[in-house]
């Protein structure tokens, strides 16, 4: 995982120096992500492919706002497999996505901390 968790240039262009907005959005991301990840896991455990892909889709569209390429692609991968009713390797992919989301939110927190200095 060498790629940056988000494209800083692209994010800053969209945010346009509105740090308060970014901070609120990052807080929402941190609040929503665990529940959505839990839904993906529950879907895999119970064989509910719809729950898997719909929750993964929501994660994907949410992290897209932060120009978070790697997390976007991982969520997209889980969504694609879920739509194809392929849940066999899903657990490992969710673990990967979970650590990528942690990496993303830490990096966003650092960006915000630097902006406040």
């Amino acid at each position, binding site marked *: 995982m060498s790629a940056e968790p988000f494209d800083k240039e692209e994010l800053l262009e*969209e945010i346009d120096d509105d740090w308060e*907005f970014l901070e*609120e959005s990052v807080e929402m991301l941190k609040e929503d992500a665990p529940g959505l990840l839990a839904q993906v896991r529950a879907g895999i455990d119970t064989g509910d492919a719809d729950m898997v892909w719909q929750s993964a889709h*929501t994660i*994907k*569209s*949410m992290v897209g*706002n932060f120009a978070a390429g790697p997390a976007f692609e991982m969520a997209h991968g889980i969504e694609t497999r879920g*739509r*194809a009713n392929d849940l066999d390797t899903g657990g490992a992919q969710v673990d990967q996505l979970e650590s990528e989301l942690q990496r993303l939110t830490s990096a966003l927190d650092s960006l915000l901390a630097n902006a406040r200095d």
Partner: protein
Amino acid sequence: MPGMDGYEFVQAIRNESRWPDVPVIMLTSARRTEDAERCRELGIKANLLKPAKQSRILDAIITSVGVDAISAKHDAPEVDLVSTQAADGPLHILIAEDNEVNQKFALRALKKAGHTATVANNGLKAVEAFANERFDLILMDVQMPEMDGYEATAAIRAREADSGTAIPIIALTAHAMKGDRERCFAAGMNGYVTKPVKTKALLAEIARVTAPSESVA
């Protein structure tokens, strides 16, 4: 893409006598070394890495339709390409979107352009809001709980059937499925913006669907 990949699809198009030369721009999440050669073989004009920036897509389109990018920019004022002004001043917009982060980003983009907005958390609530409030335009997430964007659009179009009006509806989609765009238009939507939604792309699409020539479409 599942079923048939992008190259197979382009190959199929090239074999169709109707569209042998239609310009094709590829979007890919990972560029491999063999891609450049396959793109050349199939006459693909550009191969963009996802997420592709609006400016790169625009450049690729201008180049692939054979317009010299520099002269095109020179002849047409840039405001035509990335217009952020609505046709008739501020609009009142219904945002049908279930995720709060996406709602927040969409609201911000609209407010920046001076528009006002109401948020509905799913398709059912969007249809309800449409019945109770007057809007100029709807941003419709395709994937929503309770009732999805296709069904909500169909319900809204059915309600309009007697009045002879047709509110512009722009689909917001994270582009998960092949044929999404066609499906959105077939469902009665007029515009299409892919997620993640970029302010410029959204406002340009709003300007396009509210332009006088589009309002009767």
